[in-house]
């Protein structure tokens, strides 16, 4: 059976249910694609045998007419989700050899729904980065290249392995986490769909913590509908995560009715940042016109605190990280570097185990939480966060969702933007505000840059209104008709 890896998740699901092909055949096609995609370094761990076992069980259910929502769908898992008995690294040296004795809630739900686990994908170390170059397991390559230029490009980050795998047709969909843009920015860089749901929609239990008040698990997929199907399986209340929302999970795919007539679309003035590349601005304007043509009403709105989102984020996230990462002490799991005293062992283990960006953020976080600076930095940033959330709340009194670019640029080459941490942080300019406010946001591929690379547009919605976000995302998808393919496709079709 050829062309299996070119199907969308929705198409593959239909084909499996009508028994045009088996879950085993689909799994074998994707395992072959995953192996061909090895030059991208998108996977830290491949779990082909497990995939075949899971596919066999899916085939039993599919044959028995008791198919579950994701039966037979090959899924890649960001290596930040704990998977029982399967190496889980967070792309950090400090988690060497860690095999969790438990399964994260989100992956548990995916397997309960019949999903087939292909492997664990590479990421920026502890999800800290926008390029996937901080991984202990090496950089991931974007399957896209600039036409006529053979330099490898970054896939974005931190869910870069997941995005590269889905874009290269080496996985049908993937899980990611988004703390400051880590699902949406790599989705934009790789020409796929990435959805950060509302804070509390997907359980964080069993996800290696970076910044607990900002971490959002969510899906990456090749279409908006596929992302909706994935989210439906991943979402839901979890008593094991005290911030998980006790709300029913809507049928997200059913929300894709196609109609956005009459919706009011906010266009935030302040996102027109000085120095915004002309191609980004042009794409954004095109997006506004597409939505207008589909019957929506674009309205210019103001989010006055926008410029402060990034510095507030880069105080709050490292502060939470320095606290969360205190658990890596060489005692209970992972790497240990011996020392004569307990403190010496801690210090040597953490010096050897954390890469430069993680160390930088832990040090910044420790500083802003330390005596004498806590009020000036950490509490100040939390107050600014409240104002940012207030900005959104005010905007949503007059509009149903917001439209903005996902990232200020297309993918850049591996090695670029490496010398200055702040230049790298600026990647998150348009994505960070939705994390601070906990709002759902999707990135949808909308066009190509002047040098032939994918660019995404972002739709941000009201809390727990993923349905509108998905509906508007689908309208953009339809209008953009994005049919470009990366230079490297591992799937056969």
């Amino acid at each position, binding site marked *: 059976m050829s062309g299996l890896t070119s199907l969308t998740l929705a198409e593959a699901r239909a084909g499996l249910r009508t028994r045009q092909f088996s879950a085993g055949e689909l799994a074998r096609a994707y395992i072959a694609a995953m192996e061909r995609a090895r030059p991208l370094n998108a996977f830290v761990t491949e779990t082909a045998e497990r995939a075949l076992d899971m596919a066999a069980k899916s085939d039993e259910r599919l044959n028995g007419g008791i198919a579950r929502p994701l039966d037979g769908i090959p899924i890649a898992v960001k290596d930040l989700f704990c998977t029982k008995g399967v190496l889980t690294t967070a792309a950090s040296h400090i988690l060497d050899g860690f095999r969790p004795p438990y399964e994260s809630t989100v992956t548990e739900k995916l397997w309960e729904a019949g999903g087939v686990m292909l492997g664990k994908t590479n990421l920026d170390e502890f999800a800290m980065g926008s390029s996937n170059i901080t991984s202990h397991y090496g950089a991931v390559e974007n399957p896209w290249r600039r036409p006529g230029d053979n330099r490898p490009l970054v896939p974005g980050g931190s869910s870069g392995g997941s995005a590269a795998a889905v874009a290269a047709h080496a996985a049908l969909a993937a899980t990611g986490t988004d703390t400051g843009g880590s699902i949406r920015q790599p989705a934009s860089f790789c020409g796929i769909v990435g959805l950060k749901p509302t804070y509390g929609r997907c359980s964080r239990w069993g996800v290696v913590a970076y910044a607990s008040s900002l971490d959002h698990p969510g899906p990456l997929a090749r279409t908006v509908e596929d992302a909706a199907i994935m989210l439906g399986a991943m979402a839901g209340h979890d008593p094991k995560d005290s911030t998980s929302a006790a709300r029913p999970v809507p049928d997200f795919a059913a929300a894709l009715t196609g109609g956005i007539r009459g919706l009011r679309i906010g266009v935030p003035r302040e996102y027109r940042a000085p120095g915004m590349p002309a191609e980004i601005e042009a794409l954004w304007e095109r997006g506004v016109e597409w939505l207008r043509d589909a019957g929506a009403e674009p309205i210019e709105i103001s989010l006055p605190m926008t410029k402060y989102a990034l510095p507030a984020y880069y105080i709050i996230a490292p502060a939470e990280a320095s606290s969360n990462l205190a658990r890596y002490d060489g005692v209970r799991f992972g790497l240990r570097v011996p020392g004569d005293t*307990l403190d010496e062992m801690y210090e040597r283990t953490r010096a050897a185990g954390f890469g430069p960006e993680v160390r*930088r953020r832990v040090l*910044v976080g420790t500083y802003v939480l*330390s005596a004498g600076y806590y009020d000036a930095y950490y509490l100040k*940033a939390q107050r*600014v966060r409240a104002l940012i959330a207030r900005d959104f709340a005010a905007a949503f009194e007059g509009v149903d969702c917001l439209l903005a670019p996902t990232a200020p640029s297309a993918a850049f080459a591996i090695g670029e933007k490496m010398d200055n941490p702040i230049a790298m942080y600026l990647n998150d300019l348009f994505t960070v505000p939705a994390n601070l406010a906990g709002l759902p946001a999707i990135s949808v591929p909308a066009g190509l840059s002047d040098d032939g690379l994918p660019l995404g547009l972002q739709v941000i919605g009201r809390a727990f209104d993923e349905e509108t976000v998905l509906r508007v995302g689908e309208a953009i998808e339809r209008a953009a008709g994005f049919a470009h393919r990366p230079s490297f496709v591992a799937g056969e079709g």
Partner: protein
Amino acid sequence: MALDKAAVAHIAALARIRLDEAELEPLAAELSHILDWMEQLAEVDTSNVAPMSSVAAAGLPMREDTVTDGDCREAILANAPQAAPSGPTHGPTRGPTSGPTRGFFAVPKVIE
């Protein structure tokens, strides 16, 4: 906010990360640069604004006061870089946590 070498060494000690002397100067410059950039928050008037620690609904959920987990020592110790295996034949046998089926995380001596 300019950090000097001594301040970086102090933060690193708080964070339990060993730094070489040669790393302090470049880190001081780098962290100072990042902190300078954060200073722009001072422009924002936040008087009468309460700090926001989470967007989740205020108040932690309550649950029944019952045991929901436990009896999984082997699983907990399975990933330890160094652990004294459980069973009656290993390690010292005295002490409040010892017993016929003890299992421990092993660490350098902490009590002189």
